[in-house]
């Protein structure tokens, strides 16, 4: 009897201590919450030539060279300003809104004038009841500044930024309608540069089809392109 009691006391005390030391099993009422937010891209706007069309006015037949293989119009350089409401890395993609209307035979003529790149369409005219191209034009990107600092153009294929060496200060637009190809603003080595103010110029070089291929009616130069700002 004594032996049992002597062995049982310490065990009972330790068991009680353990019981009291255990945290009580409180029930916890869950008050559920959910938090949602919509991340949206920064807002960037683009202004080309003060939102005015590049207007060559009226050109009469007498002003054109009747013997040439093409009729070159004077190149125009127009300002391009892009503004973003927060620092944003961007690239520009070009889309010809008059696809399949460029006179591809003028490519040789434009190359001779050191104008390379995609031929954008100038629309079509009726010549002897057939649709014929009015001509073509090329585009070139001028030097670019990001927040007043000179930067560079790179070709972006969705994965890499490949710096482009300008040709006579211009980077010819060679990839209109090319899906994932665009022109990114980068350092000289091809690292993207976020900014809020991008300033550059766009060179437009139009060439008309030879006069002998022209309609006798009034012809409208109907070129149109879109610049899409891509967020990188």
């Amino acid at each position, binding site marked *: 009897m004594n032996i049992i*009691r*002597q*062995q049982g*006391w*310490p065990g009972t*005390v*330790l068991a*009680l*201590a353990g019981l*009291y*030391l*255990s*945290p*009580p099993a*409180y*029930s*916890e*009422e*869950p*008050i*559920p*919450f*959910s*938090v*949602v*937010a*919509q*991340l*949206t*891209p*920064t*807002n960037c706007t683009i202004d080309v030539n003060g939102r005015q069309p590049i207007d060559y006015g009226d050109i009469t037949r007498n002003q054109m060279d009747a013997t040439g293989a093409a009729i070159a119009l004077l190149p125009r350089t127009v300002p391009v300003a892009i503004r973003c*409401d*927060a*620092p*944003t*890395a961007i690239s520009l993609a070009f889309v010809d809104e008059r696809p399949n209307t460029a006179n591809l035979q003028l490519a040789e003529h434009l190359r001779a004038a050191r104008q390379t790149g995609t031929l954008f369409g100038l629309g079509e005219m009726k010549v002897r009841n057939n649709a014929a191209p009015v001509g073509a034009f090329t585009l070139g990107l001028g030097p670019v500044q990001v927040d007043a600092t000179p930067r560079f153009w790179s070709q972006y294929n969705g994965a890499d930024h490949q710096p482009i060496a300008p040709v006579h200060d211009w980077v010819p637009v060679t990839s209109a309608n090319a899906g994932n190809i665009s022109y990114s603003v980068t350092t000289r080595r091809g690292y993207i540069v*976020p900014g809020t103010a991008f300033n550059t110029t766009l060179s437009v070089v139009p060439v008309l089809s030879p006069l002998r291929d022209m309609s006798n009616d009034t012809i409208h130069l109907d070129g149109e392109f879109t610049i899409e700002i*891509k*967020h*990188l």
Partner: protein
Amino acid sequence: MVPDKFPTSMLLAARGLGLAFVLLAMTPCAYAGRDITDQCTFHWEGERIDLGDITAALNSNIVGRQQVTVGKRQMPLEVLCPKPVVLSLRLSEGSGRFGERGLLAFTVASAVADGQRTLLAENYVAGVRNFSAVPTMRLSSQSFVGIAPSNAAGAERYSLAIDIEATLPRVDTRARFNLEVAAQGAVLLTATTVP
């Protein structure tokens, strides 16, 4: 007759008892009263908190901060219990995350118990008299925030505000396309009577 010598087993028992009392005195759970959480009702409007559209323009004027606040909301919580209780709150595990790399911070503030402004104390439980109390306290899943009414008996009606602040890495706010960021979790509430 007083024995001049205690048996060994009695000494062991006495030491064990003393140790138990020391440990009991150290643990606040020893003072806790009865859990009546399931008898309380609560009113909460934070079941769905919509922070709206977030663009990188937000906070873009703050230089040098890599984690930026993208939204703040203050959600009231009211609790009504049938008898005086002490309330405590904590976050469920994982409730501090917002999207993949963002954070949610919960702060309890403006606590009122039966109409009286009330302080908060970390890990406060019913019956404890000595504690350091503060007016606001961050919620976490590791410890709980106790609401310590000036009336030691507790209170039946509580109202408090839970400030919720969502932050994201700055780079994540530079979205290239619309993207929803979401988080789900729970504030865990316990109501205990004072013993």
